[in-house]
């Protein structure tokens, strides 16, 4: 056997490997994580853009990107076709519940609101909304429960229950493609301010605020997941990790637990204020519910 030739080949192999490895390292360091120019190439069902200019004066972002943009191709594809989108299992359920009579008054949602496709169009994009009677803003969940108690005389639905998620998703779907447009002046101003304060307050053992991840580091990896800008336009969202649909407040709780903070309760004034502030700063982004995220 010709050893020198063999060694020569081995040496070539080593060199090749070394070049490949160093090239790999260089590309890892220098390659941008996201090519922002390509933002509109790939779009979810019914959506015309996932990138808009911020409409609020104090926005920290040059452009607002929907969370869709930060997901992997495989996850995005699930949201491109409603047939593949698992969130639509809840939409179907919501549609059934819409005309199902419940409670002592013998009414269903449809008894007063008739055809959801007409009457609920745009409603989801405006929530949370100021309620004159309650003298406070109500989220979609709270509005539904108010209706159930007062008009239907039915039991409240729990925040994260299947019927509640089905109904909120079904109603939000009627606004799909419409820009998030909540009222943030007048009586809502104080709530926006309260939410903003919470957003920028560092909490938990890790001493982080929402802004530390979603403003300063979006687009980068957090474990195996890309950080988004933290907008609320896709909620309720089907999260692959959860294997089911989840509310925005569930996401809040998850985030707070991750930074070792004691999370507020779903439906608490703190989370409602935060939801209002997120909707306010994400104005203009199109409603994507039910979105698919990982």
């Amino acid at each position, binding site marked *: 056997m010709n050893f020198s030739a063999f060694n020569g080949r081995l040496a070539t192999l080593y060199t090749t490997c070394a070049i490949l490895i160093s090239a790999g390292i260089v590309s890892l360091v220098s390659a941008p994580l996201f090519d922002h120019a390509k933002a509109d190439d790939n779009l979810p069902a019914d959506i015309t853009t996932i990138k808009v200019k911020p409409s609020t004066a104090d926005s920290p972002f040059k452009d607002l990107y929907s969370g869709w943009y930060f997901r992997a191709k495989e996850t995005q594809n699930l949201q491109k076709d409603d*047939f*593949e989108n*698992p969130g639509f*299992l*809840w939409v179907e359920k919501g549609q059934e519940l819409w005309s199902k009579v419940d409670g002592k008054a013998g009414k269903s949602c449809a008894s007063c609101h008739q055809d959801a496709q007409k009457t609920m169009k745009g409603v989801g994009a405006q929530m949370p909304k100021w309620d004159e009677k309650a003298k406070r803003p109500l989220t979609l969940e709270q509005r539904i429960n108010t209706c159930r108690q007062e008009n239907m005389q039915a039991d409240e639905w729990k925040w994260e229950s*299947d019927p509640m998620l089905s109904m909120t998703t079904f109603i939000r779907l009627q606004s799909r493609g419409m820009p998030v447009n909540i009222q943030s002046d007048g009586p809502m101003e104080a709530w926006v301010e309260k939410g903003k304060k919470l957003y920028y307050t560092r909490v938990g053992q890790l001493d982080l605020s929402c802004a530390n991840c979603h403003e300063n580091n979006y687009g980068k990896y957090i474990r195996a997941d890309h950080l988004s800008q933290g907008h609320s336009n896709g909620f309720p969202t089907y999260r692959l990790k959860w294997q089911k649909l989840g509310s925005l407040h569930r996401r809040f709780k998850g985030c707070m637990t991750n930074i070792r903070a004691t999370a507020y309760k779903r439906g608490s004034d703190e989370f409602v204020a935060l939801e209002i502030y997120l909707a306010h700063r994400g104005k203009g982004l199109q409603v994507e519910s039910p979105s698919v995220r990982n």
Partner: protein
Amino acid sequence: MANTKPRIKAPKSAKQGEIITIKTLISHVMETGLRKDKKTGELIPRQIINKFTAKFDGAEVFSVNLDAAISANPYFQFTMKAEKSGEFEFIWQDDNGETYSKKSPLTVS
């Protein structure tokens, strides 16, 4: 979601020799049989879809044996070369002995 309901998305017509994509989805809990009831501590009996078959004019074109590790609401997508007109039949077999099926016609020109 509790209700078991099969869904299909398949083209109604195709050209001869065309490769068509068929998508199927069934809402099903896919209970593994390994989980315990939190209150009683007893095992929740297994209930999954254990077999999925797609037939075209009675002949099997695609089938899957499913096991407990498949997640809820199993989704299958496959492709087929459209040769002649006929009818698809999709069959899901449940552990509890029930079968769910759905049909879809295909016209080949």
